[in-house]
């Protein structure tokens, strides 16, 4: 018989997802992968919110998670739009080749 899934398990999962996302952002150059990493981080947050909502038996956490999903969708749409415009101009999706905006 498996042990019941507790809040601690969720938090571990959330932490793992967060770390995957952070490492992805720090190491990869492809903007699409960066955006995917950001999505993973947002979902880590979502897992965290749901876990505490369940633990505290309050519904606000779930509501907040829905908001996060909505914002994530909008962000992905805008981000992809910017990405396409960027690719048309620079013919690249590698962030280290896009460094015009600096001191």
């Amino acid at each position, binding site marked *: 018989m498996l042990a019941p899934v507790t809040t601690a398990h969720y938090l571990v999962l959330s932490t793992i997802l967060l770390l995957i996302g*952070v490492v992805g*952002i*720090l190491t990869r150059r492809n903007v699409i992968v*960066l955006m995917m990493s950001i999505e993973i981080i947002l979902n880590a947050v979502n897992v965290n919110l749901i876990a505490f909502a369940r633990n505290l038996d309050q519904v606000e956490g779930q509501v907040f998670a829905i908001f996060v999903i909505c914002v994530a969708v909008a962000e992905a749409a805008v981000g992809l739009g910017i990405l396409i415009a960027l690719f048309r101009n620079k013919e690249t999706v590698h*962030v*280290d080749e*896009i*460094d*015009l*905006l*600096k*001191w």
Partner: protein
Amino acid sequence: MNFLELIWLIPLIPLGGAAAMLFFGRRMDKPLISVIGPGTVGLSLLLSIGAVAQLAGLEKKSHEVVLFEWLPLIGADWGFLLDPLSAVMILVVTLVGFLIHIYATGYMAHEPGPRHGGFYRFFGYMNLFVFFMLTLVLANNYPLLFVGWEGVGLCSYLLIGFYFHKKSASDAANKAFIVNRIGDAGFILGMFFLFQAVGSLRFVEVNEALASGRFAPETGAFGLLSLTAVLLFVGATGKSAQIPLFVWLPDAMEGPTPVSALIHAATMVTAGVYMCARSNALLALAPETSHIIAAVGAATAILAASIGLVQNDIKRVLAYSTVSQLGYMFVAVGVGAWWAAIFHLYTHAFFKALLFLGAGSVIHAMSGEQDMRRMGGLKDKIPVTFRTMFIASLAIAGIPPLAGFFSKDEILWQAWSSPLGSKALWTVGWVTAAMTAFYMWRLMFLTFYGEGRMDEHTRHHIHESPRSMTVPLTVLAAGSVAAGWIGMPKVFGESHFLQAFEHWLAPVFEAAARGMHGAGEAAHHDAAMEWALMGLSVGAALGGILLARHVYLRLKEHERPSGGFIYPVLYNKWYVDDIYNALFVEGLAKGGGGALAQFDAAVVDGGVNGTAWMTRVISKISIWYDTWIVDGLVNLGAFTVRALSFPVRFLQTGFIHSYALMFLAGVLAIFGYYWWVR
């Protein structure tokens, strides 16, 4: 039913028909359109008869219905006025309009059907025209009259250019429209001055104010009222084809023949006469303008008649005849015999519409041929057309007891006897009458008598028109016979019955007659003289007919007198078109263009270049100021910021990774702070 309150419906019904046909005509078939087109006008006719019958029973013969407020400041509402004058006009417009619509269902039957053709377009425009014409004559103020005035001009344009794929037709439409604009400019200015003088543009108020004695008649002087009247008359010369703006009407014959009959003979072109009769109180105070009107009318009458003598196109003869008859009407307006002008308008509507419709029937029979030199001998082949046109030609020539005799004779008598008239006016009118008889009967003899001069193919096709065309002809022929009987000369005896027309219109003109201070008093009647003049005019008419008979029936073609140098002058319409072309089209538009180009290069461009030079000098100063002062301040600010931010600035590397790393470091730092310190 109270028809007097329903007069606003009289114009509105044809508008409904027009809207239905112009918006949905593509989906209607010909029989339906043939019912709607004449039907709406017929309904208006019934309403008009009802309203006029009730008007006749009123004590004060004037009734106004205001539909809604429009421009209250100048007394112009969307209001309709039914008085004896507009009563005559709506009856003429709806009756003649109704007959012509019926005729058109037969005449236009060969027009292509619903989807591609102009059948629905034709009747849509015709109904729209009737709407605007009725608005024009029923309006109770000048601006609304002007709305109708412009509307009929628009419909005239659309219908002249009905066969717009023909260059000559679209040119003629443009010409009519542009020439009319010149007149309209005068009309608008006239309205401005009238408002300036009187302070309202409602007919009732204008006429009351003018007849109240506040204004003195401008005899021997040329003041504000005379100027106003001249400007309004300029408008009338455009719409009613008088010198100098008559050139558009003959070209307007490019339109389908029912259009020529309705718009360019019976109704629209008489709008100018109607408007002048409406302004009777104004004209009564401006005798100098009245002299101008009478002179222009007489000159137009004789000029147009002389051109009509030699034209070969059957419709053009009738067009010049219309111009000439309109000249008669203006002579009557000019001598202050407004009722005689309206009387001639009303009889003319019958016989001229009939002549045009008859000409249309001839053209129909001749497979589209309009040149009279290739006609002849049609008398027995199209008998109904022949008989009705015979009556109309007698009527227009002024043979008693047909309609034209009474109205024309009344105008000639007034031209002789009115205080504003003169023997010269009468003489011109009398010569014109002889010419009228001559050219009309030249037309009849060339078309219906003698040998047929058409080719075999056409000869084979000659056929009488369908009943839808011959019935209107017959009705109009009856009108051409009897319409004049309600305006007998006074020497035939005086009674309310014999001079019914004059008595009917008297309430409209009596105020003006009072304002004229004597000029409007009936000229003392010299019965012997009137009989003599009547005999002379009938003699002129008979003389004209007999001369035409001699020249065009008796003499062979090569025996006819050549007319010497005068023939080319008349045939080329006194070169009026060529003069206008040289003066205005070539001279002003093209030659004037050269002068304008010089002006443009020297003065306008010079001014522009001068301005540009000035601007450059100023901009030099401005550049210096901008570079050193404005930019200097900005750069100073930027330089300061740059200097202050020296070491920190390099944190912004442009690499997202370094930002993310700093972000992470920050998060960890905050995390660490909470973990160890707190």
